[in-house]
């Protein structure tokens, strides 16, 4: 939907949102490669999050799209226009900064009206658009307030309203929620999703918080040292991570060394039942998510379940789950997260007790790499 001058919201026809095409983008600062040959294809209307640790290049990438950092080479297209050499004020992109960057010398309405005034909209028009934007951002009546008079959450909304009021081609957000406390953050995550569904604008957000990325996005791009490790839906990244880095970045993970013996991947001498295909080379890592491990009784293991035997090193009650640290017979350590209700079955979870853990083949992912 978009907000028109009469203050009504209309649904954006499917063709109106624009795709973003980043091709072979490179940027170095001296010898350090901040963006290392990145290519990204974002569909119209999609909400994409760039996720990664600090120094991964995600903010730099966002800034090159916004026009505040100049790449050394590459192409950035929004729809049909090549924008990589365009100055920022001509790109028609909405940007929300981490600290909101609201103009303290203007009121809330003044901030939101600013892009409209720059586009020489007549005064009555400006007033209508601003009122509609305030409504859309759920800030009714706050127009005449000064920036230092409103709360952090309200400032967030003003920043969003200001970035959206001029119907930008795409929206960029740099760590939009990092300045908010936990409760507000969850509230705003829902807010942003709502706005996105209403307006349909292609959105690219940057964050280092994996939960935020998973909650808000259609697809997530994981960045590491200036490269894209994986670009897929949150579910796909979680369940089929492409590399050890990605697996460690999203969700909890444990790894066990795997060797290829007689053509089959094995752990502890026994062949594994896996979900993913064979790997190249003689070594690999088995990814286990602690919450996918289950307790296995003596005769319980099905044909599709991998079994691991060992002793409990530590059991920590964590509310809805119990976190077990298990030392396997082979010497490796595993973490397992069991739902609380197991305790009632009289299963012994004392330290030192023997235990068998099972991992269904569907949850067993083989990754390239060496064990630590």
């Amino acid at each position, binding site marked *: 939907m978009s907000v028109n001058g009469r203050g009504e919201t209309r649904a954006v026809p499917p063709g109106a949102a624009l795709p973003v095409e980043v091709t072979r983008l490179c940027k170095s600062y001296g010898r350090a490669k901040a963006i290392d040959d990145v290519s990204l294809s974002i569909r119209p209307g999609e909400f994409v999050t760039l996720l990664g640790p600090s120094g991964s290049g995600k903010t730099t990438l966002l800034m090159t799209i*916004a*026009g505040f950092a100049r790449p050394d080479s590459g192409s950035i297209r929004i729809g049909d226009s090549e924008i990589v050499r365009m100055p*920022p*004020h*001509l790109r028609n992109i*909405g940007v929300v900064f981490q600290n909101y960057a609201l103009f303290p010398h203007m009121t809330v309405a003044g901030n939101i009206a600013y892009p409209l005034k720059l586009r020489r909209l007549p005064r009555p028009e400006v007033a209508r658009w601003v009122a509609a934007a305030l409504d859309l951002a759920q800030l009714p009546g706050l127009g005449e307030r000064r920036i230092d008079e409103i709360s952090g959450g309200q400032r967030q909304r003003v920043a969003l309203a200001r970035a959206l009021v001029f119907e930008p081609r795409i929206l960029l957000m740099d760590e939009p929620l990092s300045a908010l406390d936990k409760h507000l953050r969850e509230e705003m995550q829902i807010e942003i999703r709502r706005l996105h569904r209403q307006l349909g604008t292609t959105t690219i957000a940057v964050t280092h918080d994996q939960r935020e990325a998973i909650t808000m996005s259609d697809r997530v791009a994981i960045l590491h040292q200036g490269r894209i490790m994986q670009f897929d839906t949150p579910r796909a990244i979680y369940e089929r991570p492409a590399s050890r880095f990605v697996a460690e970045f999203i969700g909890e993970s444990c790894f066990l060394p795997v060797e290829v013996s007689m053509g089959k991947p094995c752990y502890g001498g026994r062949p594994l039942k896996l979900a993913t295909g064979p790997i190249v080379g003689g070594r690999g890592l088995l990814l286990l998510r602690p919450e996918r491990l289950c307790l296995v009784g003596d005769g319980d293991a099905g044909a599709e379940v991998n079994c691991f035997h060992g002793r409990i090193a530590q059991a920590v009650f964590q509310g809805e789950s119990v976190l077990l640290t298990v030392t396997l017979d082979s010497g490796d350590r595993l973490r397992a997260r069991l739902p609380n209700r197991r305790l009632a079955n009289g299963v012994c979870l004392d330290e030192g007790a023997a235990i068998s853990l099972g991992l269904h083949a569907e949850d067993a992912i083989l990754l390239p790499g060496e064990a630590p």
Partner: protein
Amino acid sequence: MEHYIPHRRRLWLYALSALILGFLILPTLIVIPMSFSASDALQFPPRGFSWRWYEAYLGTPQWRDATLVSLKVSVLTMLLATPIGTAAAYGLHFGRFRFALAVYGSLVASLMVPVILIAIGVFFLYAKLGLVNTIPGLVLADVLLAVPFVLIVVTAGLKSFDANQEMVARSLGAGRLRAFLGVTLPQIWRSVLAGALFAFIAAFDEVVIATLISGGEMATLTNRMFSSLRDEVDPTIAAISTLLIAVTTIPPLLGHLISARRGRR
């Protein structure tokens, strides 16, 4: 900031500091009562009360002319040095030149080079260009001295300015100049104003260069005061000094009061 050492253990420090502060402030203050002295002699405490030295100042054409010259030169210096210094501060702050240090150094060099050197150098140059004893000549030299002040003050203001704001303004559709005028300048205006004031005072107070390249009709106030102090001390100087003290004391005091009140709000 609460210090963990109790105040009474530091009384000696406070007393010493008070003495030193007194040493800094008091000497200048004796000039004020002296300017009202009725007698010719330079005594303190002064005898009698009279406005005669103020009348002498305002009544003597040479003093008046000199004051006018100084004011003209200082205002022109302020008007030139402020945009030059502000532009340089912006360029240095946002630019990524390899030789940024050299650029900065060349702009503040006039602070570090002894004034007497600048004076004779300028004298040589002006002798060749025929700029000795002219207002443009004085203004150019004073701008050279004033730009570093503006540069340093505005740079400090830019450092504490949130650069994201200018970026946001540009993302919203403002070109670089527009963003600067509409968003940056309204927020760093205090630094720019402070720089302008410093430029004015630097030009107004300048003595050495003025004594070398101005004289006679084009003599500045400082020039005349210096001659008077060196040759025969004229009590009119006390009146002029009092006025100068007022002019240079009131702006910083006002500035402090205003910023203190704003901080309290």
